[in-house]
């Protein structure tokens, strides 16, 4: 059951978006978080929607994968939309039933907020769908590199991330092994009241924790034996390559920002 777990949500494909440098994608996604808030009328939202969907179709990621990423927040989107519809009292009164009043401004505001949330989540999902976790880590390490001056452990953070990523499958395999061992001795993980089931996980988690600490200690020793002494003077095998398409993508985003500024109210 556990071998089906995919780490992150990377969707392997060959698209212009997949080939982009992880740094430019990170910058773009981060920038997008801000410019979404510039939109405040139908025209600007239309522009953002068009831009987002063109990007999605460029990525070759099937829509159902995006939908998977959206599912957990759909409830939140609907809730905020309703909140705005019922609580904003602007424009013409559209409907009235008892204390319930719905105004035109509320409906528009509700739709805008929902759109904003959906666009945000779609773009950030697109980042993780087209970039492997290790590439994101590398990109972050490079982008945050200047913060080393202020003694921020950027290299250590990135190494921790990549080691965690490397050990996820190993720990999953181990969990499965321990689970089977406990099941062979009569443990039941799948039935009974929720409290009982939670209790059944204790004998699973304790050995997992103990072995993780042992692994960590051994790994540290092995790293030391191979000459690890922190980030100072280290070279790197994974090279990030900034291409013309990365510059182009960021320019396009700048253009979009300019258009949003010109077209907003």
């Amino acid at each position: 059951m556990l071998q089906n777990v995919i780490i992150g949500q990377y969707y392997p494909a060959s698209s212009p978006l997949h080939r982009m440098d992880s740094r430019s994608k990170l910058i773009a996604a981060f920038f997008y978080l801000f410019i979404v808030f510039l939109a405040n009328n139908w025209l600007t939202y239309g522009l953002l929607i068009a831009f987002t969907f063109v990007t999605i179709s460029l990525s070759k990621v099937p829509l159902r994968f995006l939908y998977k990423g959206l599912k957990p927040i759909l409830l939140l989107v609907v809730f905020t939309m309703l909140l705005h519809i019922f609580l904003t009292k602007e424009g013409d009164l559209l409907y009235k039933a008892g204390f319930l009043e719905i105004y035109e401004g509320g409906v528009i505001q509700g739709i805008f907020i929902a759109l904003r949330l959906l666009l945000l989540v779609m773009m950030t999902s697109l980042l993780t769908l087209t970039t492997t976790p290790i590439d994101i880590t590398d990109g972050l390490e490079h982008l945050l590199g200047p913060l080393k001056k202020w003694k921020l452990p950027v290299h250590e953070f990135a190494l921790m991330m990549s080691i965690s990523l490397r050990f996820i499958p190993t720990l999953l395999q181990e969990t499965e092994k321990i689970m089977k061992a406990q099941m062979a001795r009569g443990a039941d993980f799948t039935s009974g009241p929720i409290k009982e089931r939670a209790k059944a996980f204790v004998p699973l988690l304790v050995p997992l924790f103990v072995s993780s600490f042992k692994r960590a200690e051994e790994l540290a020793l092995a790293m030391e034996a191979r000459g690890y002494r922190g980030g100072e003077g280290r070279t790197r095998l994974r090279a990030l390559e900034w291409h013309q398409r990365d510059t182009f993508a960021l320019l396009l985003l700048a253009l979009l920002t300019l258009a949003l500024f010109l077209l907003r109210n």
Partner: protein
Amino acid sequence: MENIITVKDVTFYYPGEETPTLKGVTLDVHKGEWLSIVGHNGSGKSTLAKMLNGLLLPNEGAVYVSQYTTGLPDDIWEIRRLVGMVFQNPDNQFVGTSVQDDIAFGLENFGVPRDEMVKRINESIERVGMEAFLNQEPHQLSGGQKQRVAIAGILAQKPSVIVLDEATSMLDPIGRIEVIETVRELNEKEGITVISITHDLEEALSADRVVVMKMGEKAAEGVPEDIFQQRELLKSAGLDLPFSLKLSEALRQQGVELDKSYLTQEELVNALWKLA
């Protein structure tokens, strides 16, 4: 013969312990040889292994590697480059997210430029016969394959010595043969010194020299033929005799006329079918 590692009168205590784990151990490792260090759990063999690349430093005495000394902070990184170490658990020494990332880890630590790194990765992966697995992730590999990747990672650092610290004890028989054969080829063809730490006497049979550790002391040292004749010593060191040796002894006790006790299965079989 030229020594690559010299262990001189080393005594070592783990912090907070009264009895020393190593007591006055002196040992020469010759260039290009295959040395097996055998002993029971707690004999100090693994501690001795960690002395050889400065993971542990002696309380008394000194360890010299080539012209370097493990106790000197200036020498330690060159020693770690020269003396590569393969540990017991294949999973817990795999740092990279893929085979090539893992081989690169050591090179990155030593600041090797990227172009040179790629060259050395391709070269060392070929020497362990894993070139088809360059982009595989660790969980897709068997234990023996992971250990070969670990060896490739060491080879890329251009080492003089490979220390196998119980490196085959967690592997299945096929993985064990895979790893031993890989290392044997490196030892024979490229003259890399091999120090194998093990409690498995079968593995020590094919060594050039064997050192027996017992209670933190060196109990015996010599060629396998001599060491394996000293049955009482091996038994007192808590070691199990190799199968062919035990069998030849049992046969002799039953009155089968064998000239001596044979170390390897092949020798024993040859002696048996020649019996009248």
